[in-house]
């Protein structure tokens, strides 16, 4: 039935090219957004399903109960993997993995580069995680120390080939032999890597299993034999515990239990500590919801335009009925057009998706790597076809039903105001569009304001003109103090500080005992601390309120540890004389503190963490073993000269390691990547929603003016001015706009308010912005109506009267 109507449908669409183009545009955008959302969801919901037998592979999580404090960790101790394999017959294979946090510097003759996603794995890794090898043997690849297995892309980058078995590659510290090249892995792996290094012998030798099982250092994975129940391992863990771990249980005053988690559930289930960042279901659903909303907008748009045009087809439908067409015939005719339109839109949508993902920097903006690939997502094509069919049927059904209902007699005589009959549902639909657009616009403006607020907020320290150098290789770490000293000698450098991490990137937390003011007793509390070096406060321009900062000579004085505290801590402890107060830490097995430090200074509060968190009480410690980061304040006027000078000094001292730095203020913004991505995504969707809604509004305006063409002409003849007529039409539409706005406003405030809860510091919800958006909507509406009505009213009136 549908097919036989297609030639007519093609003709109709071609004859009304502008209408077709507007409609196609709307539908194609709606479908393209749906396809992108589908790609995104597919990626999110198929994490780790790439591995063969993934349903049998589990990560072994650790549940510790230490002094009544129960905590779940994603990691586990060294040695657990092989002992589980020995102890349980259900385990087919087991392995452990250790991700190197920092980028690793690799070099061959042809290329020197930092690489992310490097991990250390034991020799059983590929027995658990089976994956195709392009060169080498899975079972042997990671057996020898200093072996390395790389992805095909990595091999290609460094050697221009994947057949590179036995070739050497160097890092800053070691030389490795390539023993395997694997096919590139998909991106949606929770424990993702591109390079696997075999275990260095030092790890095996230095670990005392009795101790290491109580630590969290690695990720342990087991592959169970088919049909084995993971709960058997958990339930039977007591035997394992008694055999291997009970010895130290009394000493650490705790208990330990394993929990097996299916690897495909890792991505969304990251409430464990010591886990890699995972996906957030709320974002996924949010994104899917917005995608659906845009599709609905596009469908509504089609319905509006098709109904507007169906006014002109009432006579056609009536005549067809006179000639013998049944209601069903008319319905199929209209549906065939909308389905055809929808399929053409689908083709366009594929092209749009390709343009967005392959050509435009869309993936960068949303931090994903989506691309159209029917091979890796075979369901995409049938799903798209079904979607297009559904969209065609849904969007065509309302005009189809209303046209099929037309009685020929009414159509020929325009009885019962037949043309006006279907204006109410259309008003509802356009009202809905206005509502969605206004809500999206208000939300987007608030998100943008919040991101600007964060960018410009005073963090309590000055991140401008501060270079950050993350030192990773052992040579540079060993010489980090010398490097700092050397940099200080540069006349272009204002100050240099060495620390455990860069400012603002987070703090650590530990138990401390703090001396109370009145009683001189010690109170035990959990507090944030940050390991910093000399000249920290000066470099970061953090105001010192009392006492002094750390000096170079404090480094050598390990017998008398010193700390600096912030204003919030002094306030919380009600210290009147903070200087000289004692703070204890590092508790031994009997629960006594082994170290006692003295407060030598009080600094002002600053944001040591992202603005998601409030400024909390903080202890600055001096602990040079962990120094990894150089922060250098350079002269703002001679930035480039300073960079050149620093690089010269660096190269002179550590020539093998490239000089790599970042700017602290840029690094800080990266903490809000997720929010930036969200607000960018919202911006794109806002533009799309506005575009589609404008089309819808054009449809409504042309519908309304089209209905009243004759009336406009009569009023014109009787002396009405053009603007009188514009106002007359606008009055009919203003209620629709206002209704949309009234529903949209509280909705958008609610969404914005929810989103702002993510931040400890937030902007206010400014009524002026809402008023501005509402006024803008009314003005745009008026503009569109004006264009339409003026066109009609300035046409020759007599023409409209005939």
């Amino acid at each position, binding site marked *: 039935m549908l097919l036989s109507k297609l030639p*007519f449908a093609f*003709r*109709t669409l071609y*004859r009304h090219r502008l209408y077709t183009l507007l409609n196609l545009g709307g539908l194609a955008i709606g479908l393209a957004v749906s396809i992108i959302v589908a790609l995104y969801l597919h990626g999110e919901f198929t994490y780790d399903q790439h591995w063969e037998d993934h349903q049998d592979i589990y990560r072994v999580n650790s549940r510790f109960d230490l002094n009544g404090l129960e905590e779940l960790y994603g990691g586990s101790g060294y040695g657990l993997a092989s002992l589980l394999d020995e102890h349980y017959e259900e385990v087919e294979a087991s392995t452990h993995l250790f991700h190197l946090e920092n980028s690793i510097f690799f070099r061959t003759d042809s290329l020197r580069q930092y690489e992310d996603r490097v991990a250390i794995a034991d020799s059983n890794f590929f027995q658990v995680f089976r994956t195709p090898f392009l060169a080498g043997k899975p079972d042997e690849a990671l057996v020898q120390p200093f072996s390395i297995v790389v992805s095909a892309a990595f091999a290609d980058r460094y050697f221009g080939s994947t057949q590179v078995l036995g070739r050497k590659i160097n890092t800053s510290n070691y030389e490795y032999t390539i023993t395997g090249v694997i096919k590139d892995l998909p991106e949606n792996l929770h424990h993702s890597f591109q390079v696997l290094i075999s275990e260095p012998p030092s790890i095996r030798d230095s670990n005392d299993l009795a101790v290491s099982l109580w630590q969290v250092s690695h990720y342990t994975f087991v592959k169970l034999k088919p049909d084995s129940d993971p709960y058997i391992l958990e339930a039977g863990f007591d035997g394992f515990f008694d055999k291997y771990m009970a010895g130290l249980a009394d000493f650490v005053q705790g208990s330990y239990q394993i929990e097996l988690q299916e690897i495909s559930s890792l991505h969304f289930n990251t409430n464990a500590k010591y886990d890699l960042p995972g996906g957030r279901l709320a974002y996924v659903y949010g994104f899917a919801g917005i995608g659906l909303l845009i599709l609905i907008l596009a469908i509504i748009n089609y319905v509006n335009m098709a109904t507007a045009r169906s006014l002109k087809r009432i*006579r*056609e439908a*009536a*005549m*067809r*009925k*006179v*000639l*013998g*067409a*049944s209601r069903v*015939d008319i319905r199929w005719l209209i549906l065939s057009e909308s389905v055809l339109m929808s399929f053409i839109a689908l083709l366009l949508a594929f092209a749009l998706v390709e343009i967005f993902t392959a050509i435009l920097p869309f993936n960068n903006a949303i931090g994903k790597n989506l691309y159209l690939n029917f091979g890796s997502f075979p369901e995409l094509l049938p799903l798209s076809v079904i979607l297009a069919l559904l969209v065609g049927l849904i969007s065509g059904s309302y005009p189809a039903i209303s046209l099929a209902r037309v009685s*020929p*007699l009414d159509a*020929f005589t325009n009885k019962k105001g037949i043309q006006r009959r279907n204006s109410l549902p259309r008003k509802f639909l356009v009202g809905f569009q206005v509502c969605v657009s206004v809500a999206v616009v208000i939300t987007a403006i608030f998100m943008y304001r919040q991101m600007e607020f964060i960018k410009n907020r005073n963090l309590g320290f000055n991140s401008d003109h501060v270079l950050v150098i993350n030192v990773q290789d052992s040579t540079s770490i060993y010489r980090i103090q010398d490097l700092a000293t050397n940099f200080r000698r540069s006349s272009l450098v204002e100050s240099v500080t060495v620390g455990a991490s860069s400012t603002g990137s987070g703090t650590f937390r530990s138990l401390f005992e703090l001396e109370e003011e009145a009683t001189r007793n010690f109170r035990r509390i959990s507090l944030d601390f940050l390991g910093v070096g000399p000249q920290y406060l000066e470099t970061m321009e953090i105001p010192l309120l009392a006492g002094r900062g750390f000096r170079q000579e404090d480094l050598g004085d390990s017998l008398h540890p010193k700390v600096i505290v912030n204003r919030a801590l002094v306030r919380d402890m009600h210290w009147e004389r903070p200087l000289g107060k004692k703070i204890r830490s590092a508790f031994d097995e009997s629960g006594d503190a082994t170290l006692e430090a003295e407060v030598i200074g009080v600094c002002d509060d600053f944001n040591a963490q992202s603005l998601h968190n409030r400024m909390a009480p903080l202890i600055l410690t001096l602990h040079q073993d962990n120094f990894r980061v150089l922060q250098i304040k350079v002269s703002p006027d001679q930035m480039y000269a300073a960079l050149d000078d620093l690089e010269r000094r660096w190269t002179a001292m550590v020539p093998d390691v490239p000089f790599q730095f970042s700017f602290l203020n840029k690094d800080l913004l990266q903490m809000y990547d997720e929010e930036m991505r969200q607000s960018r995504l919202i911006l794109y969707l806002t533009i799309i929603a506005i575009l589609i809604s404008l089309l819808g509004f054009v449809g409504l305006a042309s519908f309304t003016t089209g209905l009243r063409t004759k009336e406009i002409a009569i009023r014109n003849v009787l002396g009405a001015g053009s603007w009188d007529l514009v106002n007359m039409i606008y009055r009919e539409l203003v209620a629709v706009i206002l209704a949309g706005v009234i529903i949209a406003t509280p909705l958008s405030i609610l969404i914005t308010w929810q989103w702002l809860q993510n931040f400890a510091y937030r902007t206010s919800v400014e009524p002026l912005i809402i008023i501005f958006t509402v006024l803008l909507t009314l003005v745009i509406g008026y503009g569109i109506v004006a264009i339409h009505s003026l066109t009609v009213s300035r046409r020759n009136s007599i023409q409209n009267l005939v």
Partner: protein
Amino acid sequence: MIRLHNISKIYRSQGVETRALNDVDLRVQDGEFLSIMGPSGCGKTTLLNIIGLLDTYEEGLFVFKEQDMSLLDEKAKLIIRKEQIGFVFQNFNLIDDLTVAENIELPLHYLKVPRSERQERVLEVLDAISMGHRKDFFPYQLSGGQQQRVAVGRAIVSKPALILADEPTGNLDSAQGNDIMEMLARLNDQGTTVVMVTHSPHDASYSQRIVRLMDGEVTSEKKVLHAPF
């Protein structure tokens, strides 16, 4: 072929009853050419619409080809309409998106006539209405007279027993009007029954009988003496 007995059409609006047709009695024989005349608003078109099964009536009896029309549902009426009746309107009512040939072919689609036969019949009709050279034109590319010729072609393509024409020359100049009237007369000569509503005495002179309506009632009936000139 057609028997109307005491047909009344009543419009009720806000408590006011308007009788568009009042006890109309009318018979139309097979092969007859009947004109219905009368001033505007006398009920001519309403009567034609009732005969064409496009409108309903409140009282009376309507028998078409020995079948009581009041007993039929919409579906049955639709079948009679597409198989037995052809329509010609004052404003042509051609479908803009279809070519001349497709407009003529349309009724055959709804009659589910096979494609090859459809094409044959369309060619015949195009020939009969002398529009073969314009078969791929769209309606807006034709003059009013040509459009009405196509409308007549569309009305006769399914070979209906009855053609209903509502002011077929109302939008045409006299030469075009004569052309259309001659076509209808020719069809009638070939055996098709024609019922036409018209204001024009000239057009009515092509028919065999004229019925006059006034305020919804038949006021006179007379035979037409041929030939007209």
